[in-house]
């Protein structure tokens, strides 16, 4: 399959089930909502070392937030519900509670599975906190120096979240690869239900499971896609490919990831890109397989 002259390889991205939460941060203006969201999503690129993956989903207008203020929706993914709850306590407590004017709400209302970071965070109020129920949901009012921090008690857990949807941009040179990656990220920025957790949405250090030379390594460089190793390892790259970048997608559903991957791949098919590939482990590890040809069906 080719799209605008770019080969779409007949392969698939292998992804994993994760637990996900959607956090809505509101503030007096978009600047302060973003300030909190950027800190909240810091150091959250991969569960391998960060214990969670998180990024801004999209900006929210006052019409879309529970308190009619500007807001930002953030998605956070972890491997299990307990871990998700802990990360929410840590990150809301250190980055949203601390940020002037913010309030923090559940962005997945109605889901039956819940974690309760607000209940844990209430004790920061040192018994001066109070709770209120609005529309059947409990909120905690925690006194802080600029007034009150309002946080919802419980947050919905999407048990069918997926982490690790991906594709690789195989480019003739670094500039072309980066331009294609930037275009792909821009095309899907703000898509509901999907985030790209790596810096700027792009990964240059794609990894394989384990390592050849170090027994204790969980992950190591994906040598098959490193251009400098094309002649010294079992390379997946053909001659003329001199730079590879990866986009990783975490989503609330398989449909959300498929749709975002399709949009991003279409944007990435531009001059200087030789092929689009995907990262997998042979299909035996992750239960979700995103086949590029199936995703791009009808686009060539």
């Amino acid at each position: 399959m080719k799209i605008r002259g770019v080969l779409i390889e007949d392969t698939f991205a292998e992804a994993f089930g994760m637990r996900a939460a959607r956090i809505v941060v509101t503030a007096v203006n978009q600047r302060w909502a973003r300030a909190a969201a950027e800190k909240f999503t810091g150091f959250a690129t991969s569960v391998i070392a960060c214990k969670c993956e998180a990024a801004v989903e999209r900006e929210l207008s006052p019409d879309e937030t529970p308190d009619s203020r500007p807001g930002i929706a953030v998605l956070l993914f972890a491997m299990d519900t307990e871990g998700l709850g802990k990360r929410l306590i840590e990150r809301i407590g250190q980055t949203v509670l601390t940020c002037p004017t913010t309030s923090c709400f559940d962005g997945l209302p109605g889901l039956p599975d819940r974690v309760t970071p607000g209940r844990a965070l209430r004790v920061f109020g040192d018994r001066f906190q109070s709770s209120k129920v609005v529309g059947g949901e409990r909120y905690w009012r925690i006194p802080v120096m600029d007034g009150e921090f309002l946080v919802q008690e419980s947050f919905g857990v999407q048990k069918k979240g997926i982490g690790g949807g991906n594709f690789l941009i195989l480019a003739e040179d670094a500039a072309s690869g980066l331009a294609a990656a930037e275009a792909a990220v821009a095309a899907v920025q703000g898509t509901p239900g999907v985030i790209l957790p790596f810096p700027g949405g792009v990964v240059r250090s794609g990894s394989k499971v384990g390592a050849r030379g170090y027994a204790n390594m969980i992950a190591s460089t994906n040598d098959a896609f490193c251009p400098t190793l094309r002649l010294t390892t079992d390379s997946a790259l053909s001659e003329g490919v001199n730079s590879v970048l990866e986009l990783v997608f975490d989503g609330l559903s398989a449909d959300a990831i498929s749709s975002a991957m399709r949009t991003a791949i279409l944007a990435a098919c531009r001059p200087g890109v030789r092929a689009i590939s995907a990262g997998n482990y042979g299909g035996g590890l992750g239960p979700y397989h995103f086949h590029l040809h199936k995703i791009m069906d009808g686009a060539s």
Partner: protein
Amino acid sequence: MSDTVTLSLRGSLDGILEVEGVTGDRFAALGEREIATLPAWMGSRAAKLGDFFDVRGERSGSVRIEGDVSRMHRLAAGMTGGRVHVIGNAGDEAGLAMAGGVLLIEGNAGDRLGAASAGASKGMTGGEIIVLGSAGAEAAARTRRGLVVVAGAVGDDAARAMVAGTLVVFGRTGARPGRGSKRGSIVALGGIDVPETYWLACTYQPPYARLLLTYLRRHYGMKIDDRMLDGQYRRHCGDAGSPGRGEILEWVDAGR
């Protein structure tokens, strides 16, 4: 099973009609005939609900009451779930000791809206009461949990001995509000004489008030002035005779 049970008042009430069990949760389990035979009292005379109302529908937690029932007391008293929608005015003790569900009154409500039964230590323990008109004395008295919202004015002794919960008043709040309140909240948007047993803590923008007002606007279609959302509120803490954890959030721009 119907979408709604409708009670239509046949004529005007000659005296005070007291009812029991006119609640969403109760009606959800009752047939049309059983609803019509629910007990009622006209003064000291025992009667049945069907003596005064035409009943249409059955086994639904959504109840609609048509006609002027301002002389009908204890509507939705003790309700634990469902929804009672009064098209006109309601009488005294509507939503008395309510524990859940929604009571929506399009007209005015009488005294002791959402309050406690005689001798009871706590009144409403959950649910929401929305009155689009005004309410009488002792609204939300002894409320333990839940939300009482009055679009118009409320009478004297509102939120008396409130344990917790919230009373929102868009009109003028009557004399002696929040007396003996322990942890309750009064959101006063239309003017209030704050008792001397409350102290001014600060003037700020309470995020809770903003959330609550947005909820009322979106969920009940209430007309909320943007200035109420964006405005400053004085936080008065009291009551001095209690633990002092009660509050009156007084909208600064009230009356301007």
